[in-house]
């Protein structure tokens, strides 16, 4: 269960803007933790698909970086919720993220070679952009607990780095 929650963070990154638009009210800390974890797990799952399918060194290196960083973030997220005795709470945003990610993975799974590389990396750029937007405008401002806020802020910097890294890889593939 906790692994699933961590994944939420990764998922946020991958999905883009639409899932966040559905969040009507300010999310609570348990919901934010769930969303952030989900967003991470989604990005790890996408990266594992890329490691399985791609033969391009830059894409493989990038995907391994995503697994490493997002798993590290999610370990921190799990440690924090344990420390704060917060139980991450499933919510509409997490569900929308997971649904969109499943659709994207199904789309990617049908592609091969250069078409896969391009679709994966383009989606990584878009996903990180969306998650960064959500972190900046919704999740960080809504977070009540200072430690959770701080972890989200570190997460934002990581994801902004990933967005630039993905853009760099996209440039190489062209």
């Amino acid at each position, binding site marked *: 269960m906790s692994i699933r929650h961590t994944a939420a963070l990764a998922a946020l990154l991958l999905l883009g803007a639409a899932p966040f638009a559905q969040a009507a009210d300010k999310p609570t800390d348990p919901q934010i933790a769930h969303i952030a974890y989900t967003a991470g797990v989604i990005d790890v799952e996408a990266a594992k698909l890329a490691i399985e399918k791609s033969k391009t060194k830059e894409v493989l290196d990038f995907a391994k970086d995503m697994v490493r960083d997002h798993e590290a973030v999610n370990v921190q997220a799990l440690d924090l919720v344990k420390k704060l005795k917060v139980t991450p709470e499933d919510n509409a945003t997490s569900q929308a993220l997971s649904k969109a990610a499943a659709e994207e993975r199904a789309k990617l799974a049908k592609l091969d070679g250069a078409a896969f590389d391009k679709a994966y990396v383009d989606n990584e750029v878009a996903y990180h952009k969306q998650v960064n937007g959500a972190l900046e405008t919704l999740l960080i401002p809504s977070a009540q607990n200072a430690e959770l806020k701080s972890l989200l802020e570190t997460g934002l910097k*990581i994801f902004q*780095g*990933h967005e*630039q890294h993905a853009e760099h890889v996209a440039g190489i593939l062209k």
Partner: protein
Amino acid sequence: MPKRHLWIALTLAAGLVPAQAEIIQVTIDRLVFSPATVEAKVGDTIEWVNKDVFAHTATVKGGWEVMIPPKKSASLTLKAAGPVDYFCRFHPNMKGRLDVTP
């Protein structure tokens, strides 16, 4: 010919009385190089201390790269003078600069 000898003598003298080479620490905490800009001399060593749980690099475009594993340190001894901009290859939004004087 005498000119050449003078040069050798100067070089030797410089070698005999070296400026004390320093180890300069740059801390990495939450994806920030700190201090972001470091003034150093050729022969000094930069030691990056990574407090993050993430791997980082100090990379110069078209130049050197230092891998800095999570919660570890890594060093580089400066061999050339000049300003150098570096970044983290994994998180290109992390930037630093070394101003290296001879």
